[in-house]
């Protein structure tokens, strides 16, 4: 029996009067890769941003229902604790432009005012960059600015930045949509590596990507969670008609 790390019950989210996530119930198992897919505007990104409380940063955004991390309601914790434990990687790579590659990796410590001994910092930087397969590429240019890297490298740097905080869950919001195919495949390979230590939730509009990288897939349509199952079952034998239509490309 695998243990559940994220659990939503009757979860709703809206922007003002616009109800974008409707009554979502989901159990996400630890150390798995979960793909969240669906046509654009289906609420998948909003749902993802609710998991680490980024949703509420947008003026007029509200949410209700239960969202648990290890059986603790996220919405009864302070957002800072939530975000320390649930990291996030965004659609476009967003390294801090004023910081070096090194400082970008330990940004979560440095900018939070957490002082670490130099050896510990070096260890975290090397460890995190190794995990995202970037260490060999940048180890000689750690003092250069993060914006000096290519798009794919920047995105891996952002993943390293999130990994350095040792979160329990990593959220990815369409992490490869701004990348070229080669960088995309490098990032996708990472997901398999990272699964051993973290739970990964990946929003994607790319069905092939969902099929390639995930253990389980959730299909959102018009704000509802239509279907949630093992990825293999989803793509071979979906139970819902709408899922069937989506994966066979009958609507987009």
């Amino acid at each position, binding site marked *: 029996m695998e243990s559940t790390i994220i659990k939503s019950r009757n979860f709703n989210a809206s922007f003002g009067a616009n109800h974008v996530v409707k009554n979502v119930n989901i159990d996400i198992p630890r150390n798995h890769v979960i793909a969240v897919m669906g046509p654009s505007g289906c609420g998948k990104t909003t749902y993802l941003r609710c998991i680490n409380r980024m949703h*509420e*940063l947008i*003026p007029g955004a509200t949410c209700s229902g239960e969202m648990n991390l*290890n059986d*603790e309601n996220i*919405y*009864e*914790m*302070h*957002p*800072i*604790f939530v975000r*320390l*434990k649930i990291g996030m990687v965004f659609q476009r790579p967003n390294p801090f432009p004023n910081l070096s590659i090194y400082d970008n990796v330990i940004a979560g410590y440095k900018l*939070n*005012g*957490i002082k670490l001994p130099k050896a510990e910092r070096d260890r975290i930087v090397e460890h995190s960059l190794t995990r995202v397969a970037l260490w060999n590429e940048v180890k000689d240019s750690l003092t250069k600015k993060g914006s000096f890297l290519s798009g794919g490298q920047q995105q891996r740097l952002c993943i390293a930045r999130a990994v350095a905080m*040792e979160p*329990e869950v990593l959220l990815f919001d369409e992490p490869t949509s701004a990348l070229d195919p080669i960088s995309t495949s490098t990032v996708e390979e990472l997901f398999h590596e990272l699964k051993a*230590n973290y739970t990964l939730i990946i929003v994607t509009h790319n069905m092939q990507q969902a099929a390639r990288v995930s253990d389980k897939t959730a299909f959102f349509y018009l704000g509802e969670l239509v279907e949630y199952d093992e990825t293999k079952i989803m793509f071979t034998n979906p139970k819902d008609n709408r899922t069937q239509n989506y994966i066979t490309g009958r609507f987009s």
Partner: protein
Amino acid sequence: MDTSVENGMVTRSELPLRVINSNAPEAIAKAKGRVRRSFRQIRTENVFKRTLIIMGILMVILVLGVFLTLVVQSLPSIKALGPKYLWGRVWDPVQDVYGAWPFLLGTLLSSFLALIISIPFSIAVAVFLGEYYPKGWLPNLLKNTVELIAAVPSVIYGFWGLAVLVPIVRNLESHIGVEPVGVGIFSSSLILAVMIIPYAASLGRSMISMVPSPLKEAAYGLGATRWEVIRSVILPYTKSGLFAGVLLSLGRALGETMAVTMVIGNTSIIPKSIFAPGNTMASVIANEFTEADKAVYLSALIELGLVLFLVTVVINMIGKRIIDRFTNE
């Protein structure tokens, strides 16, 4: 942005210590340290959010305070003199006669004359930089130099005006047969005209550079010359923006104090011509504020300040409104 501070407060007993998936003692110690630190962070965060809100309130209070101070300090004069103060033609503090008309007239004359002189120049700069030559080192130099005009302190304009411009104007006056005093409305208008060029020019430039090129291309496509495009497409399209720039210039001219005080001649009688010495609202305040020995005298000066404040606020607000509407289209 999330500025609500109520939600998400955690008490210390509920602390989730299992921050890291590891049982290594150092990792747990690190986690505890991080959580403790976060508590301090949350308190600072709340203080910071409140500080920001206080800053917003402070700005509103500051402006209300400026307005109310002017009103309260003007009350003795408003009570004693009533509204006819504004069109009273005589200002004679010794006899306790206070009429603001000479200063209103002096301000309007000098500002509008300055505006008329400066408009062709500022529009030329705007068209030159916005349409003819938007890029290159020479236009860049012109742009920076015009901006420097606004940076020169007004007391230096005044001093230069007094030492160089006033003798020239005096010479000119003796040639055209008016009393050659040199100082006066005309001299201050000339100085003001130079000083206000950058305001209309820089706004006009950005407005003209925002004209959509398909619009211009449509006119070129019909065989229009460059000048015809400027006159019949660009200027009509940007006229509200250019007008706003002129308004901002006017706001500057009305409130300008030092340069005007130094060359206008400081005479509190109604100017007979544009070459006559006079006084503006700002210059009479600058000259007489510290000498005002009677309560009504001082209060009458402050009432001038109140009028100046209201007029410039209205002009600036109209200008800003026009700019906002223009840039949002």
